[in-house]
């Protein structure tokens, strides 16, 4: 398709090969990908149906990733504006917004990963090997399920523990413990067994 638009939002309908409720910016898709407003972009319809990925997942994952990125840029722009007006350090609403946006980086990374991994389907090696052909023959569905459950069990222990510890470090703030321990005679000397000195807790 020549002069393709950039679709900001839509509800893709894979069966009907169309987008519902599409919000398009004309020509911008071609401009971004080919640096020319009438450049040609090969759409999904140019590929055989069995060579297409499931559309909805990468469609939304990509927009979540880019949207979060734009949100972060907006936050930076606001911080410059506040800084110029000497209000950066006492605008509580801005600091709350910065805190709220912090975890979104992880969401953006996961969404980006989802975009590439689902978007490359059904290929493992493009044009040469399909995902179904690259599965380990010995790995049965039951084994794959067991290993997935094992991963989940481990991360259900490790991840909440990590979040809890990070939350505690953030809550206590930069007290007591300095970032760098003194270095004596070429050897760093900060004990593994650091007493974390913070308000009330031992």
């Amino acid at each position, binding site marked *: 398709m020549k002069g393709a638009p950039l679709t900001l939002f839509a509800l893709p309908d894979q069966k009907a090969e169309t987008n519902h409720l599409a919000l398009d910016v004309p020509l911008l898709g071609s401009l971004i990908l080919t640096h020319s407003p009438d450049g040609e972009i090969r759409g999904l319809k140019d590929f055989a149906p069995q060579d297409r990925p499931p559309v909805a997942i990468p469609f939304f994952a990509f927009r979540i990733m880019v949207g979060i990125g734009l949100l972060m840029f907006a936050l930076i722009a606001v911080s410059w504006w506040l800084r110029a007006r000497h209000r950066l350090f006492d605008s509580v609403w801005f600091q709350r917004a910065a805190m709220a946006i912090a975890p979104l980086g992880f969401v953006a990374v996961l969404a980006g990963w989802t975009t590439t991994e689902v978007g490359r389907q059904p290929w493992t090696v493009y044009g040469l090997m399909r995902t179904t052909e690259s599965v*380990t*023959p*010995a*790995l*049965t569905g039951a*084994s794959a399920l067991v*290993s997935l459950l*094992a*991963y989940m069990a*481990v991360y259900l222990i*490790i991840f909440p*523990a*990590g979040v*809890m*510890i990070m939350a*505690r*470090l953030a809550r206590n703030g930069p007290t007591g413990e300095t970032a760098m*321990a003194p270095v004596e005679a*070429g*050897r*760093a*000397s*900060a*004990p*593994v*067994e*650091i007493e*974390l000195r913070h308000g009330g807790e*031992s």
Partner: protein
Amino acid sequence: MDTLDFVPVWTLIMGAGIFFYVVLDGFDLGVGMLFGLAPDTPSRNIMMNAIAPIWDGNETWLVLGGVGLLAAFPLAFAIIIPALYFPILVMLLALVFRGVAFEFRFRDREHKSFWDHGFAYGSAVATFAQGLALGAFIQGFKVEGRAFAGGVFDFLTPFSLLTGIALLFGYGLLGAGWLVLKTEGEVQARARRQGRLCLTGVLVGVAAVSIWTPLMNAEIAQRWFSWPNLLILSPVPILAALVAFGVWRALSGSAQSGAFIGAIALFTLSYTGIAISLWPMIVPYHYTLWQAASSPSTQAFLLIGTLFLLPVIFTYTGWSYWVFRGKVRGDQGYH
């Protein structure tokens, strides 16, 4: 250009990389297991401090081994990794517990005992899984064409259980040797006692594997016991016996570094023994190093990057060991 054979170079890199991994992560996994047997918190803190600055550097060799196998010997990777799916999975999950324990045990004091157990059991499970993988590798896999054709639990055999238990003692011995080198007083004395126990276990294990392997495979028996190989290869077991004797003396006397160096020598000889038995196979009894290798241009391409990378790894590894040289004390350490 296309007649140039990079397989010997890659064999050397992979062989050395896996050996560095076994010895280096071996001793800190061993310290992790002995950590679980330590009677009090001060001892445990000292043992943790003895490996805290270097353990994660040691595990980079595991990454090099895995990626090197994928890139330089893709056919071997495609057969071995599926065949050892569960031991490798269990090993990695155990290493997760062990890895976070370094940080979590003192940042999450309410659950310190939980993370201490995670550290000790994580170390033991990772070691046992590696031993199972080694045994299954020596026994060989069921292969059809260019794929593993067995079941996911084929790795579990009496022989692999033996190598799993033997490796627990082996890494325990390396860990005890490291603790003798890095600690003093009561912790060191305990390491000497535990080291002698581990050495006994290692010798029983190595002897059993050395008898069992040629009985399993006539070709290996032929390689070791035919004339004149019997004479040429005899230094391997003789040296192993002498080194074992030296390690026992070093553990019993007052030597500080002898036990660790001797334990490494014992691992070197065992590793050499396995290499002699299996050469030139990388997928034992099915594919040689040359048959499993990627194309010469791929291997050459990878070699360029690797030859820049290896000196960097050696430099920072050596540097970190140099910075943290000397005895570890309980009241100071790295973090």
